[in-house]
């Protein structure tokens, strides 16, 4: 399977502040990749580099084999772009904006656009600037679907949306992507939404990549164990296999890629008594917090 996006040795600084160094990742054709990270971890920086709005200090990103700093119009026509906050030309109404974009894209198909617009309770002459966030999101999504791109890059698509519109957005998007073998690269600050949408996950922390794998694989391999212990003075933070640990009084919350038996063996070897040892089932958001920490 071909890589639609390929970023190699990406390094970027804002002034002297390092955003990341030698970041590498790929997005395969037909997959939906979610980029997760805390605020300031470099999600928007990555999106800006992918769009060619930011020149990285070193390294390169390729989309359909072209450097994103010099995308040709043909390649740009194959990329659908959703700006954070569903920004669109707010001085237009839904007819005007459809007419405007249709002049740029050879594969323009307005059927999905009008299908979505029919669900909105807006008047034909209503300016986009007067619409709610949810309505704006549907306009932005409808325009992308009508463009019929091969790759969709979505920057925080859930921003400002209520649960109903978020669900509508995700369901439409996933259905569209899977039916047409489309590739999606997306960020969102609401991780439960990502769980319904993405196939692969890329989790970034300050300066580094913490995980990149198919979501199912990540959720199977990354585990949370809870137990109680009397030996709270043992320093477990330095153990390599412990990704994250929270100790509150005698309650321990431990995140790791190792198995239950491995952890129990370790605790026995170190003479750390434990009881009520359980593996806690996690959602993607729990796993994200487990991996990146609460702070």
């Amino acid at each position, binding site marked *: 399977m071909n890589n639609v996006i390929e970023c190699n040795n990406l390094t970027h600084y804002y002034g002297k502040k390092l955003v990341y160094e030698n970041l590498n990742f790929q997005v395969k054709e037909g997959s939906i990749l979610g980029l997760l990270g805390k605020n300031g971890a470099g999600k928007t920086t990555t999106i800006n580099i992918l769009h060619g*709005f*930011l020149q990285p200090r070193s390294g390169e990103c390729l989309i359909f084999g072209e450097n994103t700093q010099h995308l040709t*119009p*043909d390649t740009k026509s194959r990329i659908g772009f959703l*700006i954070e906050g569903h*920004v669109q*030309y*707010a001085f237009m109404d839904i007819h005007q904006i459809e007419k405007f974009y249709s002049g740029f894209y050879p594969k323009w198909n307005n059927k999905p656009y009008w299908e979505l617009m029919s669900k909105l309770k807006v008047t034909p002459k209503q300016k986009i600037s007067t619409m709610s966030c949810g309505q704006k999101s549907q306009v932005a999504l409808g325009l992308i679907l009508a463009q019929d791109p091969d790759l969709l890059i979505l920057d925080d698509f859930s921003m400002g949306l209520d649960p109903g519109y978020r669900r509508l957005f995700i369901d439409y998007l996933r259905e569209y992507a899977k039916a047409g073998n489309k590739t999606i690269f997306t960020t969102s600050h609401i991780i439960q939404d990502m769980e319904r949408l993405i196939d692969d996950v890329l989790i970034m922390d300050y300066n580094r990549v913490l995980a990149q794998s198919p979501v199912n694989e990540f959720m199977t391999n990354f585990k949370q164990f809870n137990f109680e212990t009397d030996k709270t003075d043992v320093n477990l933070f330095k153990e390599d296999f412990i990704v994250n640990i929270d100790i509150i009084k005698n309650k321990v919350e431990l995140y790791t890629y190792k198995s239950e038996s491995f952890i129990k063996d370790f605790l026995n070897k170190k003479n750390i008594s434990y009881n009520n040892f359980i593996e806690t089932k996690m959602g993607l958001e729990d796993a994200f917090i487990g991996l990146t920490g609460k702070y």
Partner: protein
Amino acid sequence: MLKSVVFKEWLKVRWFLVILTLIGVIAAGNIFLKVQHYITFQEANKYWYRILFENVQYFRYLKLVPLLIGLTIAVAQYIPEITSRRIKLTFHLPINENKILLLMLGFGVVILLISYAIIFSIFFGLSNHYFAKEMVQAAIISVTPWFLAGFAAYFMATLIIMEAIWKYRMVYFITACAFISLYFEYSIAGGYGPVNLKLSLLTLLVSVSLLFSAYRFRKGEI
């Protein structure tokens, strides 16, 4: 593609264009209401004498009109583009970034040309009605820098608006003020004759300054 660009730009500027051109037409009309007034109450020969030998510039009310139009069209066209960084949408369209900026700029220039042509035609026609050919010629030489200033103000305003860092905006603003003031130096009617060509070339020189801010935006410098 061109039709779509024109459509978008037209939606942004249409009302501003109509209202400002109307203001320009009213300003031009007002000049000749005053001219008629002076001719009626001071006698034509006395009024002509004042124009010819006392440097009375009957067209002075037109002075800032092209500048106002140029600035307003720039604001109407480019403020919506930088609001919420909407220019990203424009740069993402399947067309070369510089090409679309030049198309937008070209649209602005055509719109200004149309607006100025309407105002200028009224001014020229009525001037010919009231004054001798030589007087009209001198007046045209005098108002030409004001119209050129309208274009220069439009070009420099695009540079300032598209720049996202206020510090640089201020630098550009001060530079623009100094530059634009060249078009408004006091002079006798027709006095700008020797420099109008040079002013036109200067105006052409700043015409693509927008591309500089846009380049900085695309490279993430702002």
